[in-house]
């Protein structure tokens, strides 16, 4: 299972901050596609992705136990 974390508007949209997804072997892009279909989650095209707390490309391949965070445009400071 992939542990998916959501923040800011994505968290509000989904109504929760974490979901577990069957996604061993998927790419980040495929995971985004699945999230869009399963949860009608919009706006994933414009977010960054972190895998295990490091920024990652859309073609990064995921393994069971990975933590994926979708990171909307940041606004700290």
């Amino acid at each position: 299972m992939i542990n998916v974390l959501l923040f800011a508007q994505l968290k509000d949209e989904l109504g929760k901050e974490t979901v577990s997804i069957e996604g061993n072997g998927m790419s980040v892009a495929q995971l985004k596609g699945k999230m869009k279909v399963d949860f009608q989650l919009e706006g994933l095209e414009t977010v960054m992705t972190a895998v295990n707390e490091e920024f990652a490309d859309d073609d990064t391949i995921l393994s069971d136990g990975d933590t994926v965070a979708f990171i909307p445009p940041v606004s700290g400071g």
Partner: protein
Amino acid sequence: MNYNISKEPIVIQEVIDKVVSRNAGAVTTFIGTVREMTKGKKTLFLIYEAYVPMANKKLEQIGAEIKERWPDAETAITHRVGKLEITDIAVVIAVSTPHRNDAYEANRYAIERIKEIVPIWKKEHWEDGETWVGNQLETVPYPSGKPEEGDIDD
């Protein structure tokens, strides 16, 4: 710990104390506070949220980037999360260096990088609604799905 995400109000002096050294002649601080008016719109309060473990790592990364560019610099950054009222402090960046120019430049580098790579979000609450603020740099946000290579590795 020089890099922190804090649920408690930030004490400026505590951040400064982390960078004072016998070989520093200059300390600059940047203190980001909650402003009431933005483009004619009145903010009531803000909520800051962070992806805490990654935000800590990215603050540390910014410190490492500064060390690479300004080897004599010492840096400390604390960013607040939770509900903040007008004039509350959202972030304090302290940088010490032997000479003053570096202290200004390294400090400014830190705030720009925070706005690029640290996973922290701000929800503005106005009289007539609320919204998550993104894209403060006023660039198209991450068209490639992640920050530019330069932003991550540089």
